[in-house]
């Protein structure tokens, strides 16, 4: 039996998932006796999935007791329409102040769910819809599982900075073997939280049978009857002597290291530890170990930062901070893209795919414009080939894209974005020219990464319709869009831009037009400290690896290779000019650009990346090298300083927007909370700026 536990102070009231029991006569399904069917349902529709907090667990516990008391031949558990359960109620975790509380929540889950595995009566999970984390773990405790053919399942804990600690880390490897368990618990979670389709879950052995949703419950009861009567035999393998344990654990570890740029981050490492232990551990000792790990992680700053980041991403995906009323947005039914180079073509494709309206591209001659259009059409064909788009949809879009050398084609556009060469005078000239062609309401957007949007709007008759619309490369993949307002940009223009951004399924921040906006400004400042250190004489590998333990997805020079020294140098020069000498221009970078050396790393003969001798030869060698720790601290200090300046200048209004930018625009990890929670917990914010960015408890353990 379990004891109820109460929520920590300050935690939002639990949305309770109630569990109720009904008898199902198995006679019509060919077996004698009744099945006690437990339904879990929080009473709300599918947009608010079942979650599992202490009161929900108590309700399930009571339902199991009730089910047993009915002396059924089997017990089954199922969810509400479209949803099984989306896992533990995480809302309370951020408020836990005591490790004992954390331990108790883990233990409560185990105490309730393990009953489903330990009672003599056969137990079934009829997973009728979405089952994530603790939801799927309910199923894993049961002896058998059926799954609806349209339901997605996953153990996303490692994605969130946790471990599948309500039995998953111990039960799953025993059920499906180490290799598949590592796939589900580690690789899927680390791969941007990939969920399993029903056929994957069946193939991996996570579930025993899959039925169509139209009569999922009836077929599942039929399956239960067949198992009970022996018509269906379910074989379980003992994986304890499986030869693959060591190698797959190594695979899991490699994936975790790769994800975090070589850093050993607690959540994946502890998950691997639990998986490894499950080889020989009894269920009881496995569950106990899970409790300890869950408590350790829950009472750690990285998990609190992760939860903060997760909630931030979820919330801001829907609501853009500082956005004007959506009703102010103008209808967009024709879009222009100035330029037909690669970036412009990518933008055209993204706009075309999401807005599904006519998109016109221009370039200096018809041949270049045609080339852009051809590229877009070829990409559509590729999508059809990969079965990610129907041929019909591609046909429709192909007819909507066109190219011209004559900018008059923009005449009826509602939104024109430019992606021409990054030079202010060219863009100023372009907007002046466009203004004579387009209507006064047409939004003129620029994808500039560091030039002043304000200055592009100077001298225009309608400067209020100019706005920065800054994507990240590759534009189809990177989720962030920085929307930059000048001092004159009006609300209708901003609302229109935000509405387009939503159509493009981007996460947006609205910032003041300031050099580099948010992401490039911080990244360039950060990179500058590394290149400075190298220029001063720090060995390149020391400088580049100084940040490894933090868990950034790639090192500074790996990032440089991706961005390209040319672009990076150009941004650095612009910021140097506009923000001051703290943005230095690296002689090494200048030399790389001059010599056409693209990267610090090249692929060696064995496929591994090694230092590029051509780059190493260009390093401007100073005489005051720093230690790795010194590099790390100065880079972090620079970030804190710059973030504080941005807030003081009002580039964005809240620290959360800076974090959101780094999470979505730079791919910085959730356990850093973006970046500011990390700077807070390392004491850098205090020492450098005299204050934290977030109050204790917001993205960290409470004080």
């Amino acid at each position, binding site marked *: 039996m379990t004891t109820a536990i109460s929520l920590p102070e300050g935690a939002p009231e639990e949305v309770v998932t109630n569990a109720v029991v009904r008898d199902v006569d198995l006679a019509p399904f060919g077996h004698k006796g009744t099945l006690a069917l437990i339904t879990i349902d929080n009473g709300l529709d599918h947009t608010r999935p079942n979650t599992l907090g202490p009161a929900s667990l108590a309700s399930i516990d009571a339902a199991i007791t009730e089910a047993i008391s009915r002396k059924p031949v089997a017990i089954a558990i199922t969810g509400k329409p479209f949803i099984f359960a989306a896992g533990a109620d995480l809302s309370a975790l951020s408020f836990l102040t005591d490790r004992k509380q954390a331990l108790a929540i883990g233990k409560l889950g185990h105490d309730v769910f393990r009953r489903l595995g330990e009672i003599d009566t056969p137990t079934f999970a009829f997973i009728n819809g979405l089952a994530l984390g603790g939801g799927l773990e309910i199923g894993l405790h049961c002896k058998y599982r059926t799954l609806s053919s349209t339901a997605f399942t996953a153990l996303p804990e490692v994605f969130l900075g946790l471990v599948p600690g309500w039995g998953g880390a111990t039960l799953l490897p025993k059920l499906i073997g180490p290799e598949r368990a590592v796939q589900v618990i580690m690789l899927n979670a680390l791969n941007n939280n990939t969920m399993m389709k029903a056929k994957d879950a069946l193939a991996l052995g996570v579930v025993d049978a899959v039925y169509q949703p139209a009569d999922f*419950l009836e077929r599942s009861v039929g399956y239960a009857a067949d198992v009970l009567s022996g018509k269906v035999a379910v074989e379980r393998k003992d994986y304890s002597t499986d030869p693959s344990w060591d190698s797959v654990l190594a695979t899991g570890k490699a994936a975790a290291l790769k994800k975090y740029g070589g850093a050993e981050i607690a959540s994946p490492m502890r998950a691997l530890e639990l998986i490894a232990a499950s080889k020989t551990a009894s269920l009881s000792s496995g569950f106990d170990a899970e409790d300890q790990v869950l408590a350790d992680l829950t009472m750690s700053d990285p998990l609190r930062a992760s939860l903060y980041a997760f909630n931030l991403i979820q919330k801001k995906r829907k609501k853009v901070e500082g956005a004007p009323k959506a009703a102010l947005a103008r209808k967009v039914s024709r879009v222009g893209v100035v330029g037909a180079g690669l970036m412009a073509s990518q933008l055209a494709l993204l706009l075309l795919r999401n807005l599904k309206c006519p998109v016109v591209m221009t370039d200096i001659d018809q041949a270049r414009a045609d080339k852009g259009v051809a590229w877009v059409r070829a990409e559509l064909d590729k999508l059809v080939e990969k079965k990610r788009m129907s041929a019909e949809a591609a046909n429709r879009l192909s007819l909507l894209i066109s190219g011209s050398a004559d900018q008059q084609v923009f005449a009826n556009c509602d939104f024109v974005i430019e992606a021409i060469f990054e030079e202010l005078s060219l863009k100023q000239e372009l907007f002046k020219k466009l203004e004579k062609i387009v209507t006064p309401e047409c939004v003129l957007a620029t994808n500039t990464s560091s030039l002043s949007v304000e200055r592009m709007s100077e001298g225009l008759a309608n400067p209020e319709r100019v706005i920065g619309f800054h994507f990240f490369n590759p534009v189809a993949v990177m989720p962030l869009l920085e929307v930059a307002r000048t001092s004159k940009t009006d609300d209708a223009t901003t609302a229109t831009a935000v509405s387009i951004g939503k159509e493009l399924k981007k996460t947006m921040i609205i910032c003041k037009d300031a050099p580099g906006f948010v992401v490039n400004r911080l990244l360039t400042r950060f990179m500058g400290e590394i290149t400075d250190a190298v220029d001063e004489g720090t060995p390149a590998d020391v400088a580049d690896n100084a940040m490894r333990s933090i868990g950034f997805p790639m090192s500074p020079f790996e990032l440089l290779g991706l961005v390209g020294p040319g672009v990076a140098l150009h941004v650095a020069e612009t910021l140097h000019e506009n923000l001051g000498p703290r943005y230095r221009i690296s002689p090494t970078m200048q030399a790389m650009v001059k010599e056409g050396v693209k990267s610090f790393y090249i692929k060696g003969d064995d496929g591994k990346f090694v230092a590029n001798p051509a780059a190493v030869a260009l390093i401007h060698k100073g005489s005051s090298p720093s230690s790795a720790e010194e590099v790390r601290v100065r880079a972090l200090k620079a970030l804190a300083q710059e973030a504080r300046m941005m807030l003081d200048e009002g580039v964005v209004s809240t620290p959360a927007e800076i974090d959101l930018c780094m999470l979505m625009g730079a791919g910085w990890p959730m356990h850093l909370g973006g970046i500011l929670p990390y700077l807070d917990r390392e004491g850098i914010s205090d020492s450098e700026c005299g204050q934290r960015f977030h109050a204790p408890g917001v993205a960290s353990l409470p004080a």
Partner: protein
Amino acid sequence: MSRTVVLVDAVRTPFGKAGSLYAGTRADDLMVRAMRGLLERNPKLSPADIEDVAIAAATQTGDQGMNLGRSASLLAGLPNTVPGYSVDRWCAGAMTATTTLAGAIAMGSIDIALAGGVEHMGNHPIGEGLDPNPRFLAERIVEQDALAMGATAERLHDRFPHLTKERADRYALNSQIKTAKAYEEGKIQRDLIPTAARSAELGWGIATVDEPPRPSTTMEGLATLKTPFRPAGRVTPGNSSGLNDGATAALLASEDKAKQLGLSIKAKMVSFAFAGVEPEVMGYGPVPSTKKALATAGLKIEDIGAFEVNEAFAVQVLAFLDHFGIADDDARVNPYGGAIAVGHPLASSGIRLMLNLARTFEEKPEVRYGITTMCIGLGMGGTVIWENPHFKGGK
């Protein structure tokens, strides 16, 4: 008929009381469940071979709207190459779906078809959304009684005073007793498709038996019931069918195709007929429709060895039996009980009669012909005459 049409198989969901068992279940989901259950029982038939689907409902709006024939087919997972339409002849909806498809099969337009009917009277109370033309009453096209089915039943008592309330109650009691016995012997359950039914408060359950039967019914109890259709009337909730939710489905085929695919043949269609009577005594409809169907088939009432008469009201069955000189408690009539006990989800009931008759045919190879018949609102009756494929002996 140019080609013989056969009933391959028929099933139904358990029936519920309106607002109870299926209060949280959609009508189209009930229909889909019956269709899928039917197909699951007939694995030799590839769903792609179904050439038309006709689904009936008396109120065709909301979850019974959107052309159920097509929408339920898509929801049931039939290939999108299978067409479908919806039909309405009020209570005889599923019967009409069957006869209309049979006509297409007999003509050679199609070989295999699926007929069905559904009524969720909890979601669609009888008369929902009706807007009778004022001319009906102003011009005395019908009397007020014609628009309330219970009142038409009272009018039958008026017309045939010897069909007393006591006889109606006894008939109703007998229906409950026969149903209870059939349940005991497992004769009803075998054609019920277990159907998931969710209640927000109780969670998921699975309906496996009919909810309406009242096996504890007594004559004394029946005598105390109110007569809601007129003061001192004779029609009570006890000697009428109730307000119910449920769905039925049947597979039809040309005899040749059924044989070719190795499908079961449960009954062969001999003839069918629909006929009209004064709307005020709509319960009398089965008399003329049966006469006509017999005439078409060249049969006499004495040739019929099994009857499935829908029990909208006990008096309406009695009027039918009385006309043809059949005793109130004739064993050939509704051997498993009828709608008074198991319920009458309006448009679905026609196929329930067929699946019962098919079971009688199986049990009684000495019976050659049987009929299914029912009365229909606004003064109609429908009758289908079937031949027993298991018939042995005799002429």
